[in-house]
């Protein structure tokens, strides 16, 4: 009953889908195709030459430098995913199970922080963590002396910024999957004599897996494009793929190479998504036979 | 009953969903002011028929006129019908007043008229005037039902279509709303077409009942016809419990001769009016309603027809006691419903006689 079959002659369907499809086709899919095409061109005196060759790709695959940056980006992204999930699990669990009364206020606070301008927040972190910032100031007043600790301008600071900006994604996906768990399952586990910790481990955690996977994948893919954090907080100490791409376009003005590197990052993201999708199907099929 | 041209005239309607045929050559006519119930088990096509009448579904074949106008291709918004939905479909974001006023507002009636009509409808449905500003979620189940009825009736449709609106209610509320619907029908004089899977409800409310099964109408008739003169075993079994004895009939001139194992009648002949239409000689079923049977342990207490057997089980239902009796030669236990007393007339294992008048027998198709 809920499914209404629509034919493409239906005006409502056309109105609802055609404009947005046209937008996405023309300004998302076509640009992607163009990027792919550009990666097969070469460049001369900062201008693109339509040469249709694989020179750029050979360049990409033979330079270890690019790949070490990709590897570093992936490492940072994985670290970011791990931290986001570890932090989000207790938060989401508490929101669902312990804080019904203030749940909405907490959610509004998180959404508000999430929607605030990322540049400003990153700048705020710099002010907080700087040599002469709030943190060192406070440490000094409680007697840690003037030994200003350098927290900024290292890969750790970049990671802090990434976790800060991406954490809301995992909190909300895990929250949604936890909120859908039937409370009776948890009670059944208690009833069977399981302790709280064991119940969490054996019932809640496995059932929250869709949210964990979805949130993790989302954070991973979005981490691949980070450059604000690495530039402003990391101080360029941890070159990330996005920074490399930006430089290739802006400083080196090598569009084919920039396009190729962009496609490499997109490919990593798509492969991750595909892998997660396969994992999902695998888990579901196991559930089916059980 | 009105013998003029019918308000609804549906002829030989077919309805296909993909390869599945939901309605097969269904014909139905409803007269002005008549209350017709469509009854049948789920999947019998009764709801499909109602949706075709309302204009939510197209018909695949056949013809449909309502109020003398051809309805093929006419959208529901332009039909003189209104529907009461199974789940009521009250608009949760509108108050009771706004819900009831909605059809009038769409018809651009002046505000005074809308307010007056809504007030009248609320009064007619016994809704307190103070409820006008409430939202549906703030009403009880019964009140919501009455708002839904008021919304459907406010623009004075020629036909009201009811899609099992009472099926989700508890028994007590159901009874009171059945009375309410009956009263509404008497007051307004609109034709009602009521879909239900509850034949008892249909018998209480309707002037005429259509029993449907697997996309076909099996029988259309007054409630007493459906109950006492069912066309076949399916219709007979659809309400309450009944006894169907396998039988053979012959048609010698002057009457219908029957013989059934386990049953002995002084004169095994029935009048021609005691048989379902179109019945040929051969295999058939003999129906006797449980409440027509007299049960006794006394051999001398004879009726025109008699069966003998042993009590398998009995249930005290309050107003009556139901006996299940094993009769040699009859496969299913024979059910007899006797008036309730503090002393059940027989116990499990007792040998009993079941007797009844020959006039209470009815022969019908086997199926």
């Amino acid at each position, binding site marked *: 009953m809920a499914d209404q079959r629509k034919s493409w002659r239906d005006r409502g*369907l056309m109105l*609802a889908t055609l404009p947005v499809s046209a937008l996405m086709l023309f*300004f998302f899919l076509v640009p992607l195709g163009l990027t792919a095409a550009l990666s097969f061109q070469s460049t001369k005196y900062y201008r693109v030459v339509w040469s249709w060759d694989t020179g750029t790709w050979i360049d990409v695959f033979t330079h270890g430098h690019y790949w070490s940056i990709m590897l570093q980006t992936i490492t940072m992204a994985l670290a970011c995913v791990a931290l986001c999930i570890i932090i989000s699990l207790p938060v989401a669990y508490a929101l669902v199970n312990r804080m019904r009364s203030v749940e909405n206020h907490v959610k509004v606070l998180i959404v508000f922080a999430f929607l605030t301008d*990322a540049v400003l927040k990153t700048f705020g972190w710099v002010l907080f963590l700087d040599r002469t910032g709030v943190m060192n100031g406070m440490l000094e007043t409680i007697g840690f002396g003037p030994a200003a600790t350098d927290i900024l301008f290292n890969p750790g600071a970049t990671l802090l910024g990434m976790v800060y900006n991406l954490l809301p994604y995992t909190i909300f996906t895990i929250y949604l999957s936890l909120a859908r768990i039937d409370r009776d399952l948890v009670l059944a586990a208690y009833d069977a004599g399981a302790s709280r910790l064991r119940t969490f481990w054996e019932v809640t955690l496995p059932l929250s897996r869709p949210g964990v996977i979805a949130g993790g994948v989302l954070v991973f893919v979005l981490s691949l494009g980070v450059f604000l954090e690495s530039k402003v907080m990391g101080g360029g100490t941890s070159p990330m793929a996005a920074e490399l791409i930006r430089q290739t376009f802006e400083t080196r003005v090598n569009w084919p190479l920039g396009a190729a590197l962009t496609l490499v990052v997109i490919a990593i993201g798509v492969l991750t998504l595909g892998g997660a999708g396969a994992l999902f199907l695998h888990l579901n099929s196991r559930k089916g036979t059980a | 009953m009105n013998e003029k041209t019918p308000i609804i005239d549906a002829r030989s309607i077919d309805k296909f969903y993909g390869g599945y045929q939901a309605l097969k050559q269904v014909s139905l006519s409803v007269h002005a002011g008549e209350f017709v119930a469509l009854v049948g088990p789920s999947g019998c096509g009764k709801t499909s028929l109602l949706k075709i009448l309302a204009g939510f579904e197209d018909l695949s074949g056949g013809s449909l006129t309502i109020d003398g106008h051809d309805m093929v291709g006419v959208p529901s918004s332009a039909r003189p019908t209104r*529907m009461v939905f199974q789940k009521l479909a009250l608009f949760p974001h509108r108050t009771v007043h706004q819900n009831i006023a909605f059809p009038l507002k769409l018809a651009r009636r002046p505000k005074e008229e809308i307010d007056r009509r809504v007030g009248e409808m609320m009064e007619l449905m016994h809704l307190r005037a103070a409820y006008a500003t409430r939202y549906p979620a703030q009403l009880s189940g019964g009140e919501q039902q009455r708002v839904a009825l008021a919304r459907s009736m406010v623009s004075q449709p020629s036909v009201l279509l009811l899609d099992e609106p009472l099926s989700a209610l508890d028994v007590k509320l159901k009874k009171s709303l059945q009375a309410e619907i009956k009263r509404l029908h008497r007051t307004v004089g609109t034709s009602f077409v009521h879909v239900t899977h509850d034949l008892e409800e249909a018998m209480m409310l309707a002037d005429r009942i259509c029993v449907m099964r697997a996309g076909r109408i099996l029988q259309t008739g007054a409630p007493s016809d459906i109950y006492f003169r069912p066309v076949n075993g399916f219709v007979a079994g659809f309400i309450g419990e009944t006894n169907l004895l396998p039988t053979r009939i012959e048609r010698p001139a002057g009457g219908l001769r029957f013989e059934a194992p386990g049953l002995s009648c002084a004169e095994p002949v029935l009048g021609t009016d005691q048989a379902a239409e179109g019945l040929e000689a051969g295999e058939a079923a003999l129906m006797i309603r449980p409440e027509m049977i007299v049960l006794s342990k006394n051999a001398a207490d004879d009726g025109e027809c008699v069966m003998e057997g042993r009590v398998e089980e009995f249930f005290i239902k309050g107003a009556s006691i139901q006996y299940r009796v094993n009769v040699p030669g009859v496969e299913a236990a024979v059910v007899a419903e006797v008036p309730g007393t503090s002393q059940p007339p027989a116990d499990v294992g007792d040998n009993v006689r079941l007797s009844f008048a020959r006039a209470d027998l009815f022969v019908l198709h086997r199926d």
Partner: protein
Amino acid sequence: MTRDRLEGHLANIVLYGSVAGVLVFFYIPILTLILFSFSESRFLSFPIEALSLRWYGELFAANDFWPALRNSAVLASVSTVFATMFGIGGAIAWIRWRFRFQRFFQGLTFAPLLFPQLLLGVVMLLWFSVLGSWLDFSPGLWSAIIGHVVYITPFALVIIAVQVHGFDDTLEDAARDAGANRWQVFREITLPLIWPGVFSAAIFAFLLSWGNFYITYSLAGTARTLPTFVFSGIAVGSSPIYPALATLSFVPALLLVGLADVFRRRAAARRAAPPKSE
């Protein structure tokens, strides 16, 4: 039993602690900015010696500030209108309808959500540059608007889809039955019922656009919005006008999120039954 109790206490500490910790974490940079915006000093260092509104004055006097504010407002408003409209149609088509090429439609309208913003911006910039060299124009605020709509529409769509999910079709049937045409059904029934989702989506869209850096940075050409204005500023060296700007730019977000909460509560109050007067 005592072990269970201990476990329970420990769990509570971890759970409540994590929520409190995360909230503190989220608000550290925000509060730091607000704090520094009221500092007297030219240098952004702690502890703050004196409070003043001096830097707000300096900010209003800055040449680049007003165009950036105007650009941000235009960009966010226009993007919100388009993303929300596309989101409504898309969500209904996603959830309630079945049609040919639906999978393709769903993939196409969801994919930008899975793209890092910078890459989305870069890919579109390449396209705009090619288009620009063909048709002789250069990217500006309008190309940033297109970029924002592409990026934000999936968010709006998902938020509205959550509201559309569980929509009772018979309500629309009932409206049709009462004599409503397609447009009336949409305006009187469908839209009011999905309104909470549409409203949240619009607020979300506005704020995503208002605070967006990456896409604006890639696509706006020479046009500056508040985020790119700040970025170009702090890239050169931090100035005390930026905390003041940050504090000011929180205001619309705060107002909108507060407004959304008020609406949500009002809608919830309507659904909840008052004590029955029977």
